[in-house]
């Protein structure tokens, strides 16, 4: 590892969080080889280590704490509202319960196993066990020392791990959107638990840990276009195919319970995404500021673009279309947020809005699966569009590296393929062990009553 500093710029680029322009505190991240080149080999940590509290950046730590809260808000209650508003009335509470339960489950699994697998050095495919069992994250008051990750040495490792947790949580929660209204709650929890460790953690390691093979290859993914969105989209598609369509799908109108809830959720997602993207700078600096700006521009462009497409195709713009376009733009800018100009963000958002509109309509019909809330259509397609456009539009003055569309395509393809195959395998295992779907009567009654014995009032 230490011997290949030459390739650090590539490695750095791969790590979303690693991108920073702070030369003293950030040397873990590629942040622009420009800054990196002045540092001696021996100063570059390759594993978590104890450092003096004074060496940390208070501003960066404060921003990362804030970003962590923002990203968690994206799930609780952002995604919960976004999804629950779109399902039929009889399964609203089940959808919300799924998101809440996943947040809790993944949180525990993350500190038990997942973080160690994802963010410790070992080999290009998976991390080691040094952070398993809630170990690490030392804070030694008397000695004045704090544990930091080699990936983000300017902030406490506890903060970095928490920030990463919120990404793991939302990725798992996104997958659920594909199989709402028909999957057994117990099976969903079991499957998601396994998925987080077997699918999410390895992919995060590949892209975001310096020794990960996609990081080594030079794939650019600032904040998780592949790790979060292509991954969740592919998994959602696999789930939709495997679990099968809802009864009446394609024949009956499945009216959303409340698009007002969906809009409230979309608002939380938009604002929370500032933590998602700008937080991935792992610093309160110019790069974070630029990432926030381009995130906002892409969201707005995505909303307008989807709205325009829908207006032309269907004669009227819809609230759901606006909300979906926002998310499409945000998804697509995610891999690019630390690398592109505002003008490029406008283009990325606009193209993503149209591409994801097609993904949620025409492509959905082609694929033939009941991907209920269009996880693949929006997150999968948006992530792929964003990954490719990052290769095309990454600005060398901003990022320090040149994008490569082919490398981006290979990275996106690898994540897509792994997620599809492994998700299918885990579903097969879950089905064999405990079964996946509720019975017909339960599905007809609704999962609120069938799975939770609860119902919406009124």
């Amino acid at each position, binding site marked *: 590892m230490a011997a290949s500093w030459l390739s650090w710029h590539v490695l750095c680029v791969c790590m979303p969080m690693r991108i920073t322009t702070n030369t003293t505190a950030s040397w873990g991240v590629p942040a622009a080889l420009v800054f990196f080149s002045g540092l001696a080999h021996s100063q570059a940590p390759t594993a978590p280590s104890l450092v003096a509290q004074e060496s940390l950046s208070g501003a960066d730590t404060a921003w990362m704490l804030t970003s962590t809260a923002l990203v968690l808000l994206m799930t609780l209650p952002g995604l919960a509202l976004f999804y629950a508003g779109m399902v039929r009335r009889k399964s609203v509470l089940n959808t919300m319960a799924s998101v809440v339960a996943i947040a809790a489950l993944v949180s525990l699994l993350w500190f038990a196993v997942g973080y160690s697998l994802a963010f410790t050095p070992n080999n290009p495919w998976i991390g080691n066990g040094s952070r398993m069992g809630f170990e690490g994250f030392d804070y030694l008051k008397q000695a004045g020392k704090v544990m930091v990750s080699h990936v983000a040495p300017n902030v406490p490792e506890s903060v970095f791990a928490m920030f990463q947790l919120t990404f793991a949580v939302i990725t798992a929660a996104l997958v659920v959107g594909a199989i709402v209204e028909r999957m057994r709650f117990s099976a969903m929890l079991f499957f998601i638990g396994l998925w987080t460790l077997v699918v999410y953690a390895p992919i995060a390691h590949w892209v975001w840990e310096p020794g990960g093979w996609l990081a080594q290859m030079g794939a650019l993914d600032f904040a998780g276009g592949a790790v979060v969105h292509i991954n969740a989209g592919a998994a959602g598609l696999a789930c939709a195919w495997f679990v099968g369509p809802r009864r009446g799908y394609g024949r009956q*109108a499945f009216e959303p319970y409340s698009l007002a809830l969906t809009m409230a959720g979309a608002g939380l997602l938009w604002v929370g995404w500032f933590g998602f993207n700008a937080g991935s700078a792992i610093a309160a600096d110019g790069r974070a500021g630029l990432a926030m700006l381009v995130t906002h521009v892409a969201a707005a462009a995505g909303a307008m673009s989807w709205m325009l497409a829908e207006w032309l195709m269907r*004669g009227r713009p819809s609230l759901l279309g606006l909300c979906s376009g926002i998310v499409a733009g945000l998804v697509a800018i995610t891999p690019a947020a630390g690398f592109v100009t505002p003008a490029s963000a406008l283009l990325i958002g606009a193209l993503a809005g149209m591409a994801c509109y097609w993904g949620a309509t025409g492509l959905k019909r082609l694929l033939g699966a009941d991907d209920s809330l269009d996880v693949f259509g929006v997150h999968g397609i948006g992530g792929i569009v964003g990954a490719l456009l990052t290769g095309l539009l990454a600005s060398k003055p901003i990022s320090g590296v040149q994008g490569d569309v082919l490398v981006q395509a290979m990275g996106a393809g690898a994540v897509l393929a792994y997620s599809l195959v492994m998700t299918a395998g885990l579903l097969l295992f879950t089905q064999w062990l405990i079964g996946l779907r509720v019975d017909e009567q339960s599905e007809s009654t609704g999962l609120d009553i069938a799975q939770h014995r609860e119902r919406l009032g009124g």
Partner: protein
Amino acid sequence: MLDSERLAIAAHMHVLLRRKTGRVTDTEWMAGNLEYAAEVVRFAREKAREDGHAELAEWADKLEQAVGAPRAAGSKGPSHGPEALAPRYVGGIR
């Protein structure tokens, strides 16, 4: 719309058609099957035009809205593009 509300509209249409035209229909199938509902809507509108039963046309509109049945070719209504005729929330919510 609740399933029960949809079924209620189908049941009302069933009674109307039985009384006004003698036609017997399957209420539950009407509430759950898009093609069948679309055909019932078409038939009801045709009978409304031929025999002057305004109530049939009114309830045909309600049934169409309830199940998201597509308008038959030639029927009046706004046309806004290729996907405008696709029934809302059938086969996807977006």
